[in-house]
């Protein structure tokens, strides 16, 4: 029940359509490699997870036909995408815009919970630990992707900027995060 004046942007229909047919195994492998790069650059994120360092998380972007199964695996994370109903110790569901916005510190997790944009199920402690660890890590997924792209960093930067402008999704970390 978001405030109508502060509605989260919708995930592009084209992305949802593509994920209905795209083979998920290569995508899972790519995301695992990407997450391990993040783990190398942000080891404190995994230390902050403490006892939840090997917890199976299910991240469910409700406007996409897939869910993301994440195991931090004590700093060597594994990511698997699936179109089936996934089981995990903790499930965090919400629009893609909310989940990515949380990663980039654009939104407050509790505010999204109050507004029912975010739903937490299962092990609440694990979900809280993940949220707090990510909030502290100050990740910028776009910057990580650009660095990973080597000589293609500049075109990747432009592509991300265009995608962000077109979709309204928070694909980069705002310099001075402001909520909605």
């Amino acid at each position, binding site marked *: 029940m978001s405030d109508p004046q502060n509605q989260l942007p919708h995930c592009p229909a084209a992305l949802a359509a593509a994920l209905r047919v795209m083979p998920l195994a290569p995508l899972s492998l790519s995301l695992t490699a990407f997450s391990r790069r993040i783990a190398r650059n942000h080891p404190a994120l995994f230390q902050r997870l403490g006892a939840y360092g090997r917890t199976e998380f299910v991240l469910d972007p409700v406007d996409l036909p897939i869910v993301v199964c994440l195991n931090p695996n004590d700093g060597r994370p594994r990511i698997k995408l699936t179109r089936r109903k996934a089981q995990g110790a903790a499930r965090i569901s919400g629009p893609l815009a909310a989940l990515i916005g949380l990663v980039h510190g654009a939104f407050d997790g509790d505010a999204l919970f109050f507004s029912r944009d975010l739903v*937490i199920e299962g092990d609440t402690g694990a979900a809280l630990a993940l949220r707090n660890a990510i909030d*502290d890590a100050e990740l910028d997924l776009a910057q990580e992707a650009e660095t990973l792209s080597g000589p293609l960093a500049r075109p990747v930067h432009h592509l991300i900027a265009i995608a962000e402008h077109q979709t309204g999704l928070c694909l980069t970390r705002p310099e001075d995060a402001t909520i909605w």
Partner: protein
Amino acid sequence: MVMEIVCPAGTPAALRAAVKAGAHTVYCGFNDETNARNFPGLNFDRAEMRTGVDFAHQHGAKVLVAINTFPRAGDEAIWHRAIHDAEACGADAVILADPGLLDHAARHHPGLRRHLSVQAAAANADVINFYAETFGVKRVVLPRVLSVPEIAAINAETEVETEVFVFGGLCVMAEGRCSLSSYATGLSPNMNGVCSPASHVDYSEHQGVLDARLGGYLIHRVDKDEPAPYPTLCKGCFSAGEKTGHLFEDPVSLNAERLIPQLQKSGVTALKIEGRQRSKSYVAQVVRNFRTAVDALDAGRPLPEGMLARLSEGQAMTTGAYKKTWR
């Protein structure tokens, strides 16, 4: 003189955000049971505390370390070590609640400024003056059960600085003495640093209806279009006979923004924002809002309109006990 804004930081990133947003002072705690926000993924290890204090000092802000739970018999050394380490990290003050711990700090760390936590529930001038005379307490965080005239009456009878909550989660009980969480979970904010510990909270949503359970007890059920509350017993919705309702308090947040001029007139030194469990985004936005307000007040300008409703529990706000209008 500008009123001091005292801001929460649950993580080093939140501390930096608070300082950059204009906090005069930041309060935080170690990642153990010595502070009353002992939640998963939150708080500071010793190295992070030292770095955080250095960052704050470089930007002209102060850091207060909350060591405000009550030491467990036989394990006092954990709390003593926290005070020692806070001083070693360069903290500007420690926030304490337990008289034994206050005595220890006064004897062994006389140069470390001591503030009295809201967990001590010191709600009148006599007890505040007792803490000042006995343990050298320089500031007291007042419980959220006092009206503005009551705060003015306290300030008229004490030299101790007073700090009051102006925004965030609203405890409706006498803090430091509430055991509601213990009845449902076996853990309490006073001894374990956790009110409604996440490990005992369970949410489930079915066809848009969200159930919240604490220690297995259903304490909230909200429909699809209703805002979700925190899973605390004091704001639970209970049924008795044919009536169903919030027994103690509706799930709302405190916002005393409009009362800042009155609080200043009543002699309050510092305004405290609740929310060490919240994100850096929350911290930055709330701090910026309140810093703008106190600067405007100091300059004789009208207070700006608030923008904080969407950050509030239940997406609703109250002035709490400052204006006693509830049932």
